[in-house]
């Protein structure tokens, strides 16, 4: 018994020390990872500055016709600072993007939509333009306001429309009830509840994490999701590069471009080089 107690104590302390050692090693590995990200970020920044100064020729021309839709996801804290969103929209208008979807999980941007539309020259609500193809005469940017209620809740509403159709056709005692559940029927039901069902081609995610963050699932099928880094280090040049890369790549499915911009809580402003990411959940 006398022998066991010190042994137990010893093994306890060995365990504690080895856990401490492992923990320190874990933290050290993460310091290395952070350094890698920092170095990569510096290279990105240099390249971005070069692109925005026009030093890298291949990025000066973009076939913008391949891009029709853009989405911006806004963080709840950042959503209160509408000026950043406005600046982003102005940048996008300059690039020539015709359609933008602003995604804010809490719906704060939907509440500020009038202010945003007023502050961005040439902008209009997407609903006003309907679902028509881009007209060459329209110079401004069409903005769509999206929130998480347009994701799963919208599918629930559409499901209830299909339920009504299904119950009606079952009562007619024929086989039509089964045909109500097709992709095109669900698409149509989503349109009836006021949802845009266009599938974006490209999604640019700005923020700490590469994730679509609850963007309407029904629309994400073949969307290219590109992570742009965090909001603090967003640059116009990086934005141009990402769009250029997309337009240069063969598309499997092409309907529009979505850029989801996810903003960090800390906002760093620079006079002419802010590439924006507004992210909201």
């Amino acid at each position, binding site marked *: 018994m006398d022998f066991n107690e010190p042994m137990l104590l010893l093994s306890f302390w060995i365990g504690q020390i080895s856990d401490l050692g492992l923990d320190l090693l874990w933290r050290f590995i*993460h310091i290395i990872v952070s350094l890698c990200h920092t170095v990569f970020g510096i290279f990105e920044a240099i390249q971005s500055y070069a692109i925005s100064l026009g030093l890298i020729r291949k990025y000066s021309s973009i076939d913008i016709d391949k891009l029709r839709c853009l989405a911006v996801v806004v963080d709840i804290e950042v959503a209160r600072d509408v000026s950043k969103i406005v600046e982003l929209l102005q940048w996008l208008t300059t690039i020539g993007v015709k359609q933008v979807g602003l995604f804010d999980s809490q719906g704060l941007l939907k509440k500020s939509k009038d202010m945003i539309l007023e502050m961005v020259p040439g902008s209009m609500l997407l609903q006003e333009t309907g679902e028509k193809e881009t007209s060459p005469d329209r110079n401004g940017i069409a903005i769509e306001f999206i929130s998480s209620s347009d994701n799963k809740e919208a599918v629930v509403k559409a499901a209830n429309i299909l*339920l009504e159709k299904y119950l009606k056709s079952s009562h007619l005692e024929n086989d039509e009830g089964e045909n*109500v559940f097709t992709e095109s029927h669900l698409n149509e039901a989503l349109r009836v509840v006021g949802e845009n069902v266009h599938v974006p081609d490209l999604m640019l995610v700005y923020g700490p*994490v*590469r*994730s679509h963050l609850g963007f309407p699932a*029904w629309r994400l*099928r*073949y969307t290219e*999701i590109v992570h742009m880094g965090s909001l603090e280090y967003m640059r116009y040049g990086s934005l141009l590069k990402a769009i250029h890369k997309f337009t240069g790549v063969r598309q499997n499915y092409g309907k529009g471009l979505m850029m989801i911009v996810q903003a960090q809580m800390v906002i760093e402003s620079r006079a002419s080089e802010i590439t924006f990411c507004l992210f909201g959940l």
Partner: protein
Amino acid sequence: MGGGGVSQLLEQIHMLSRRCLFRVLSMGPLPIHLAFIMDGNRRFAKKRGLEDGSGHKAGFSALMTMLQYCYELGVKYVTIYAFSIDNFRRKPEEVQSLMDLMLVKIKSLLDKESIVHQYGIRVYFIGNLGLLNKQVRAAAEEVMKATAENSRVVLLVCVAYNSTDEILQAVKRSCADKDVERERERVRLVDIEENMQMSVAPEPDILIRSSGETRLSNFLLWQTGHCQLFSPDALWPEIGLRHLVWAILNFQRSHSYLEKKKKKKQL
């Protein structure tokens, strides 16, 4: 024989160092559910000048290796995108050879020495199984039944699957339930969630798509709202430990951020 001994020793060293690395990684949060899009098998075969089916066979080996790593790490759920509904549009010969390979591999899971019994893996086949031929469907059902008692790891194999079809089928099942009950009942979100085939697992923590492609290709769109997406450039047969470790390290960096977002959403 000497060569065999050396390679065995090297394998033991590799396994030991891997376990040490995993022990270090476990000091931080680890993912509970990993999802893989196994893209790039055909490109791999072309790149190496191999015949058409070899890419998929190499892909299967890479999958077994990944499953072993996941098991060693203590990952509870692994989902793989084995065959999309859209893949039926490929050349009939290719679809047939994929179905044949799948049948062989699914049947091999029934062997006593197979990985599923060794690691206590419960297998689910997720997708519109009615689109598969009878033999593959029967084999899949047999494997699901045979592994129903396993509980150490859950492997979800998405075959004849796509997310829009999954959502549609969940809506259909939710509506069909309502038909039996009173007419005024409405479909609720919880009905659709319960009827999603992937409801047997929690939402994935990391989704890894190999070959550098950045789209989800209609995979787990409903479930990846708070999932970290990772697209290493390596083709699927080339995927290795370093890619998995890098994905986990990045997951650990962003874990608290995503957890915060998940909690906000629940409120």
